[in-house]
C-alpha cells in the first residue's frame, strides 16, 4: 500500500518528516518497503508552452517547437513525440537538467537544428508505465491549462509528495486504506483523526427501485448494496484525483472508474461500476456460477467459470466475477450515462479461491480475502456516488438497492491488567492500559483492572485477549519491555542416544578427512531410485517446479555424485565428501514415506598429493574401506563382514562389497560403475552408504574398555601361497576358528601377486599374535598351536607355506 503523506494530512495533523514517520510505522505497525519521492533526483524540469510547432525539414517524424518557459526568449526544442501540438502545456527538461535514471539533458543539435532541452513524457521523468494514463502512454504529457510556464512541474503532477510504501501483513487489512492508516497513526502519535463524511445529495423524485431489483445469497455476500447515478458524463478525472491514483500506483482511466479506485484506497472498500444500460432485465443476482457459464473479463480474457466462483448475474448470465474482476461487456465506456455502483462484502474464502484458480490477484480481491471494514460499506458507497455525480455532472438516484445487509456489531473482548502484565512481563498501570485502548479508538470500560473492550469492525483481526495484548505491547513499545530469561523448573538439556550417534558419526568422518556436504533432498525420478538398499516406492511431488526435482531421494550417493560432478566440471579433481541425512522409503500402500537416517560418502582423485616428503596416494577401494572400518570401530560396531557383491547395478561388479553385521545387511561400499561415472562425467569414484538407523538400533556402548594384559605377547609370521580366488576373509576366519584361545589377533601385512609366484597364485602374509592374560606364554605352547593351524590350512586351502 503506497501512502502519500500529503493525503494523510487531510485526516490527521502530523508534522513529521517521512523517514521518521516510516521508522515509527515500522517499529509499531507494519513493515515499510520504501520511502520515496518522484522529484527526488530531478533537476530543472519546468512547465513549457508550445507557441509554435513546425515540421523538421530534414526528418519526417521530428518537429521543431518554439517553447515558452517563462523567460524572455522562446526555446527551440526538437521533439519526436507523435502527439506534439501547438498551444499545449508540456513538460520541458531545460538544458543541463536531470531527468529519470540520472540522465543529463544538454543543449544539442538534431539533424542540423539546435535543440535546447527536451519535451518529456511522464515515463521520462520517472513515472512507471503502469500508471501513465492510456492517452499519454506513447507520447508526451499535456499539463493542465492553468500550469504556469517556467514553474517546476513537480507539484502539478504530485511528484513532490512523499510516498511511504507499506508492506501490510495479512492480519492488518485495516492498513490497506488511507482511513485505516490514519487511525493507526492516531494511535501511535496519540492524535485524533478527522475523517470527512459524505454529504450525499439525492434526487428525491427518482428512486433506485425504478431502475433495478437485486437479490443476493447471504452466505456469498453478507452485504450487497447498489446505487444508481444518472446523467453521468464519462471523461478524464480532475488532476487532484489522477495524482492520488498514480501516486498510489493505479492508472487513471475515467471519472467513474477513478472514483471507485479512489474509494478503494480511501476506505479499503472495493466498489464496482456497471454500465446500467448493459444490465439485461434490470435485475441483478449474486449467486454461484452454473456449469458451463463463461465470462469475458475486463482484461479481455474469456474465462470458464467454476462452480465455486461467486458471480454477479443479470437475466442473460454472469456480468462480473464478484470481488475479483468485472465483465468487459457491462463495463464503463465513454458512452455510459447511467452507472450502477456496487458496494459489497463477499465471502472471503470464496474470493480467495476464485482469485487463485483464475490467477486474478487484484487489489479488490486482496481486500475481500483479508477482510474489509463492514461498518463503512454504505458510507463508502455514498461517498463514491456523490463524487461520481459531482465529477460527471450527474445525479444520484435516491435509495439503495439492497441484496443483503448484515448487521454490524463491535466485537467485545474482556481482559485484565494482570493477564496483560503476566504475558508481557511488564508492570503497566490500569490507566496506561486504558489510555492505549482509547488511542486505538476502541471502546473501553474498566472496573478494578478488568477491561471490557469493544473493537470496531475495521480491526476484524482482533477477537481474543491475546490480540489485545499485542495491541498494548506494540503501542507501549517493544523497546520498553524488559529482557529476562525463563525462570521456573530446571530441565536437562541433552542429546538423545540417536542424536549423539549421528553427531559422533559426523565428527568421526570429518576426522577421517571427509568434508560434510548437504545436497538436495529432491531429485529426479531416476536419481532418487538408484543405489537403493531396500525395496521401496518413490515419493513424488504433486506439482513439481522442474524435472530435476520431482522425487524425494531414496539414497544419498546420487546427491553426492552431483556434487562430485560439479567439482570435477570445475577442475577440482580431488573430492572427499560425506553426507548425513535421511532417505525416504515409501511402502506401496502408504502415502507417506518412512524417513531413515543414512550416511554416505563419495571419494575420487588423490587421497594425498605428491609432496617432497611422500609419494602421492590415489583413492581406491581400500582407502574408502579404511574409513568405513574406522567409523564402525569408533561407533562400537563388532562382527562386521564384507562380502563381494554384484547385486548393485550402479556399482562396479568386481569392486563392490556388501557390509554385514552378523547376518544383518547395513550397507555397501565400492567403485561406482563406469557407465554411471561416464554419465556424470566424473573420474573413478568410490562410495559407501550405510543405514545409520540400523547402527543406532544396535545400541552399542560407544567406548568399551579392555584391560591391558600384563604378560608379553608372542607373534608368528607366515606367508601363504594360495590360489587367487581365495579371499583374505576366508583365511582369517579359518585361522581364527582353528586356533586355540591363546590366539588374540590375526593381521594381514602383505599381499603379493606376480611372476615369482605364478599367475594363478597369490601370496598372503599374516602376523598371528598370541597372548594370555593370566600367565606368561611358553614358546612350545604357541608352536604347537601354530603348527596345528598351518597343517589344517594346507589341507583346507591347499596352501603352500613359504
Amino acid at each position, binding site marked *: 500500500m503506497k501512502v502519500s503523506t500529503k493525503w494523510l494530512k487531510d485526516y490527521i495533523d502530523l508534522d513529521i518528516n517521512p523517514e521518521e514517520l516510516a521508522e515509527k510505522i515500522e517499529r509499531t505497525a507494519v513493515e515499510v518497503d520504501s520511502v520515496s519521492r518522484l522529484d527526488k533526483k530531478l533537476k530543472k524540469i519546468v512547465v513549457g508552452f508550445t507557441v509554435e510547432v513546425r515540421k523538421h525539414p530534414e526528418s519526417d517524424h521530428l518537429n521543431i517547437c518554439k517553447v515558452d518557459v517563462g523567460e524572455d526568449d522562446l526555446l527551440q526544442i526538437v521533439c519526436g513525440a507523435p502527439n506534439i501540438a501547438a498551444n499545449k502545456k508540456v513538460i520541458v527538461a531545460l538544458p543541463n537538467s536531470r531527468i529519470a535514471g540520472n540522465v543529463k539533458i544538454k543543449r544539442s543539435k538534431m539533424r542540423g537544428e539546435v535543440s535546447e532541452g527536451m519535451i518529456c513524457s511522464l515515463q521520462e521523468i520517472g513515472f512507471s508505465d503502469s500508471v501513465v494514463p492510456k492517452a499519454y502512454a506513447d507520447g508526451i504529457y499535456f499539463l493542465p491549462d492553468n500550469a504556469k510556464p517556467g514553474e517546476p512541474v513537480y507539484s502539478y503532477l504530485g511528484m513532490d509528495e512523499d510516498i511511504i510504501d507499506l508492506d501490510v501483513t495479512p492480519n492488518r487489512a485495516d492498513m490497506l486504506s488511507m482511513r485505516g492508516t490514519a487511525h493507526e497513526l492516531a494511535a501511535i502519535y496519540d492524535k485524533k483523526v478527522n475523517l470527512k463524511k459524505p454529504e450525499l445529495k439525492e434526487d428525491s423524485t427518482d428512486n433506485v427501485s425504478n431502475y433495478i431489483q437485486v437479490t443476493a445469497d447471504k452466505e456469498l455476500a453478507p452485504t450487497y448494496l447498489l446505487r444508481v447515478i444518472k446523467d453521468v458524463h464519462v471523461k478524464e478525472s480532475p488532476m487532484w484525483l489522477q495524482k492520488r491514483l498514480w501516486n498510489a500506483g493505479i492508472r487513471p482511466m475515467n471519472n467513474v472508474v477513478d472514483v471507485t479506485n479512489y474509494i478503494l484506497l480511501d476506505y479499503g472498500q472495493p466498489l464496482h461500476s456497471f454500465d446500467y444500460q448493459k444490465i439485461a432485465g434490470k435485475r441483478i443476482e449474486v449467486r454461484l456460477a452454473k456449469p458451463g457459464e463463461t465470462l469475458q473479463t475486463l482484461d479481455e480474457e474469456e474465462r470458464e467459470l467454476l462452480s465455486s466462483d461467486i458471480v454477479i448475474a443479470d437475466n442473460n448470465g454472469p456480468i462480473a466475477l464478484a470481488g475479483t474482476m468485472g465483465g468487459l461487456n457491462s463495463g464503463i465506456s465513454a458512452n455510459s450515462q447511467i452507472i450502477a455502483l456496487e458496494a459489497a462484502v463477499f465471502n472471503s474464502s470464496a474470493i480467495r479461491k476464485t482469485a487463485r484458480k483464475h490467477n486474478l490477484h487484484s487489489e479488490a480481491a486482496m481486500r475481500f480475502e483479508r477482510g474489509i471494514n463492514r461498518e463503512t460499506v454504505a458510507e463508502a458507497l455514498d461517498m463514491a456516488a456523490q463524487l461520481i455525480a459531482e465529477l460527471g455532472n450527474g445525479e444520484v438516484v435516491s435509495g439503495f438497492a439492497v441484496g443483503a445487509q448484515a448487521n454490524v456489531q463491535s466485537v467485545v473482548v474482556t481482559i485484565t491488567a494482570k493477564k496483560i502484565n503476566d504475558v508481557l512481563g511488564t508492570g503497566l498501570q490500569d490507566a496506561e492500559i486504558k489510555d492505549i485502548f482509547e488511542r486505538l479508538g476502541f471502546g473501553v470500560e474498566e472496573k478494578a483492572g478488568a477491561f471490557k473492550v469493544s473493537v470496531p469492525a475495521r480491526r476484524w483481526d482482533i477477537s481474543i485477549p491475546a490480540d489485545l495484548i499485542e495491541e498494548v505491547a506494540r503501542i507501549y513499545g517493544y523497546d520498553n519491555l524488559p529482557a*529476562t530469561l525463563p525462570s521456573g523448573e530446571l530441565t536437562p538439556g541433552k*542429546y538423545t542416544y540417536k542424536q549423539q550417534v549421528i553427531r559422533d558419526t559426523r565428527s568421526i568422518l*570429518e576426522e577421517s578427512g571427509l568434508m560434510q556436504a548437504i545436497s538436495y533432498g529432491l531429485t529426479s525420478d531416476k536419481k532418487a531410485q538408484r543405489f537403493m538398499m531396500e525395496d521401496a516406492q518413490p515419493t513424488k511431488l504433486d506439482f513439481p517446479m522442474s524435472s530435476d526435482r520431482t522425487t524425494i531421494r531414496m539414497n544419498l550417493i546420487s546427491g553426492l555424485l552431483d556434487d562430485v560432478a560439479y567439482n570435477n566440471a570445475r577442475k577440482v579433481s580431488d573430492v572427499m565428501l560425506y553426507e548425513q541425512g535421511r532417505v525416504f522409503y515409501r511402502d506401496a500402500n502408504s502415502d507417506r514415506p518412512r524417513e531413515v537416517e543414512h550416511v554416505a560418502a563419495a571419494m575420487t582423485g588423490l587421497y594425498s598429493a605428491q609432496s617432497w616428503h611422500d609419494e602421492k596416494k590415489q583413492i581406491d577401494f581400500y582407502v574408502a574401506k579404511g574409513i568405513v572400518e574406522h567409523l564402525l570401530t569408533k561407533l562400537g560396531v563388532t562382527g562386521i563382514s564384507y562380502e563381494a557383491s554384484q547385486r548393485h547395478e550402479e556399482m562396479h561388479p568386481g569392486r563392490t562389497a556388501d557390509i554385514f553385521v552378523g547376518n544383518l545387511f547395513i550397507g555397501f561400499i565400492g567403485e561406482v560403475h563406469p557407465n554411471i561415472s561416464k554419465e556424470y562425467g566424473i573420474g573413478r569414484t568410490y562410495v559407501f552408504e550405510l543405514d545409520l538407523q540400523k547402527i543406532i538400533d544396535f545400541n552399542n556402548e560407544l567406548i568399551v574398555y579392555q584391560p591391558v594384559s600384563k604378560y608379553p605377547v608372542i607373534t608368528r609370521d607366515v606367508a601363504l601361497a594360495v590360489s587367487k580366488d581365495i579371499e583374505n576373509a576366508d583365511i582369517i576366519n579359518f585361522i581364527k576358528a582353528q586356533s586355540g584361545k591363546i590366539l588374540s589377533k590375526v593381521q594381514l601385512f602383505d599381499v603379493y601377486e606376480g611372476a615369482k609366484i605364478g599367475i594363478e597364485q597369490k601370496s598372503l602374509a599374516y602376523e598371528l599374535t598370541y597372548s594370555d592374560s593370566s600367565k606368561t606364554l611358553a614358546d612350545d605352547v604357541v608352536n604347537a598351536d601354530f603348527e596345528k593351524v598351518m597343517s589344517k590350512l594346507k589341507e583346507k586351502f591347499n596352501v603352500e607355506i613359504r
Partner: protein
Amino acid sequence: MDLKDRLTELKAKALSEIDTVEDLKKINEIRVNLLGKKGPITEVLRGMKDLSKEERPVVGSLANKVRDELTEAITQRREKLEIIKTARKLEKEKIDVTLPGVPVKAGQPHIIMQVIDQLEKLFLGMGYQVVDGPEVEEDHYNFEMMNLPKDHPARDMQDTFYITEQILMRTQTSPVQARTMEKHDFTKGPLKMISPGKVYRRDTDDATHSHQFHQVEGLVIDKHITMADLKGTLQIIARTVFGDEREIRLRPSYFPFTEPSVEVDVSCFKCEGKGCAVCKHTGWIEVLGAGMVHPNVLTMAGVDSEIYGGFAFGLGPDRFAMLKYGVDDIREFYLNDVRFLSQFAQKG
C-alpha cells in the same frame, strides 16, 4: 733412575699424551697401554719386590696415586671427546626446518551445520531438548495445528510442495513443535525445545531463494513465561551468533501461530550500526521471527491456554551463515564446491 723418578716422568709424559689425543679409539689404546697388565705402571709395581721394606709402601702409594691420576685424566678426556663426537654427529643431522610439514587429512562440518551446532550447544546449555521430526509432513501438523486453516490468506506466505492433498514437504520445522506439545506431560515440568532441520518451499532457486533450506525453531511452554523472557532469550541468540556487542530490537509482525508476533533485528555487526550495504544503511539486520504462542495453537495441541503459555521463535541458519560470512548466493550451500566448503574450517 729410581722408581720414583720413573713414575714422575711416566706421569708427565702420559698426561701430555692424553691431553693431545683427539680420537676415542686412541684414548682406549692409551688406557690399555698405560694401565694394562703389560703397562709401565704394572712394570714399576713389579719392580717393587727389589725395594727395601721402608721404600716399598712409599713407591707403592705413589704408583697408585699416579695410576688414579691417569685414570681420571683418561676419563675426563674421553668424556670431552664424546661430547665433541655427539656434537659433530648432530651437526651432520641438521635438516631444513622451513620445509613444509606433512599435511594432516581433515574434513569439516558444512558451514550451515556449524551454525546449527552452535545454536544446539547454546540451547542444550539452557536446558532445551533438541527434537527431530519428519520432513514429509501432514498438512494437519504443518499448517492446521499452526493455526493456519485451509483457506487462510497467510498460506500464501509459504508456497508448498504437496505430495497429496494431505501430505507435503514441511515448510517449517514448527510441526515438530505441535507433535511434541501433543505428547508432552506438563505435570512433569515445562517444555523447552528447539527443532532444527531441513524445510522446503515451492520457490525458484536464485541467489536469495532456495527450494530447500534450514530452520531452527524454538519453543518454551510453562506456567509463567513472558514476552520479556522471549526478549532476553533472543538477545542471547543474537550475541552468541553475531557477537557480544549486539543489540536487538523487536518490530510487530504477523505469524498465525503467535500473538503477539515480532520480527527481530540485530544491530549491524559490519558497521556497528553506522549504516552499510549489509544492513541497507539502517544499522539493523532482520534475523528472525518470534512471538508468544497463539492460544489456538496451545488448545489444538491439548494444552490448557488458561494455565500455560509460552514463546516460540524461528530462524534460518542459511541466512545466518550468509550474513555472517558474506555469502551472497544461497545456492552455494547446496552445490558443495570443495573450494567453497573448505573455507569454513571450524575454529574451536
